């Protein structure tokens, strides 16, 4: 039986720029940054929730040929490469204001949804990011399932 999700991956077109954005602006922390020779293994995580990492992978050789990498880059910048990240926050509007002050451009301002208040943005490459402040019922479930996991 599977136990937990450890790493998910998204494509970024430049790992330095990705760090500036994900760490410098969104406030994630670097979990691993290793030159493996064949690739730079770069993962980030939400501070306090480091069991779940996001691998920031650069499309290119040797994992794929140049033409394929170009296709991936094309799709990423069209917002259709499948990069989606959903975060949870305690206060969506406050987080929105803080990130706006840091120069983050949003695609959607905080909006009330059946599941909570959430808003949307893109990273510098076209990947789609949201963060939600779940409605109280959802947040209760969230925290109790979190306790069970531990």
């Amino acid at each position, binding site marked *: 039986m599977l136990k937990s999700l450890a790493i998910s991956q998204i494509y970024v*077109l430049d790992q330095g720029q990705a760090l500036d954005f994900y760490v410098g602006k969104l406030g994630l922390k670097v979990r691993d940054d*290793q*030159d*493996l*020779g*064949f690739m730079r293994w770069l993962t980030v995580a939400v501070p306090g929730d480091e069991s779940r990492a996001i691998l920031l992978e650069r499309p*290119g*050789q*040797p994992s794929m040929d*140049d033409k394929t990498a*170009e296709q991936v*880059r*094309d799709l*990423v*910048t*069209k*917002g259709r490469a499948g990069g989606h990240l*959903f975060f949870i926050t305690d206060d969506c509007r406050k987080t929105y204001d803080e990130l706006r002050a840091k120069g983050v451009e949003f*695609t*959607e*301002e905080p*909006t009330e*949804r*059946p*599941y909570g208040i*959430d808003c*949307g943005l*893109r990273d510098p*490459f*076209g990947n*789609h990011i*949201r963060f939600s402040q779940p409605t109280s019922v959802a947040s209760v479930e969230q925290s109790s399932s979190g306790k069970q996991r531990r």
Partner: protein
Amino acid sequence: MRGTPSIVPPPRHRTRTCCDYAVSRAVEDSNLRMLRARDAMDRTYAQPLDIPALARIAIVSEAHFIRTFRATFGETPHRYLQRRRVERAMFLLRQTDRDVTEICLDVGFNSLGTFSRSFRDIVGESPTDYRNRGRGAAAVPTCFAMAWTRPSSFGEARERGRG
């Protein structure tokens, strides 16, 4: 830190000339500009959106905008926006009891006539018939619902949706 020579790749980008890169970077930059305009349509579909405004968001000329948007996403900005508005109307018809006329204005149409005609053309039935069939929707994040329930202008999904 380097591995054995046989698996170490050539340094980044060696196999391509700077010229190849200039071309693909230009495509990526253009994609991101078009994406910015498309995001604006997804966000402010209810407001009057014209080509000059969208071209300004994408920071390109108007003529270039329509052509490039179509080349990037496979449909014109006008079609994209019209289907976004219809998608939002379908959502409101399913989820609320609001009057069709109100919904029409809410999603950015100026007249009930244009709305009803566009809705019928795209969905294949009138707003009222659509509502009466009472299709439920699972509670998925809105961004996915918006991406997947926007009626396709590419034909195939439209046929499937009718089946």
